[in-house]
């Protein structure tokens, strides 16, 4: 599905996207933890 441009976001969608972006580091860290376990580094 093609990503909606942020200029088309409603105010609520924009705010939600901003909060989700602020939380991307936690998402990235979870993927790193999972990968390290797969590789036996943890």
């Amino acid at each position, binding site marked *: 599905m093609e990503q909606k441009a*942020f200029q088309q976001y409603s105010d609520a969608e924009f*705010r939600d996207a901003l909060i989700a972006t602020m939380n991307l580091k936690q998402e*990235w860290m979870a993927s790193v933890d999972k990968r390290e376990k797969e590789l036996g580094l943890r």
Partner: protein
Amino acid sequence: MRLSVDNINQTAPYWVIQLDDMTFRFVTKNGVIYRVGFYKDQYFLGDRAYHFFIANETNTISPKDVDVYKVITCVIEEFFRQDKSVMLYICDPYDHREAIRDNLYKRWFNSYPKHDELTLQAEELDFEGYIVYTGMILRNDHPEYEELLTTYKAFVQRAINIYKVQPK
């Protein structure tokens, strides 16, 4: 996009392990484990941009080590070998050291020997007293250079205009 750990290890002072296409891990002489990498933007610039993250094992302040800076430079340099790479960062506020992190990004950029090949657009978003430090770095020869800068500024302006909720 896949970054090359071989390229990174040619000049990095610590041995770097590749965890996935754009994420790496290394251990310092002080035994501190760092993870550094990029994560695709999902909401604002999409496929055109990646968020840059760095984290250590304990999420605490580590002993000063200039070699960490050198490894990070190698990783970012490898990222910018790609023509269409745009790097975004948001300074993590979890320990209230976000302004220091923002200053580190700016110092890194200004001391980077090839910084005249890149543009740093740094912004401070004031959400009713809650400051979020963010930035975008892209190559000066990026084919969508002007459009990306305009888009980023539009994003920042809309964030300033729209974000009315006082964070905790």
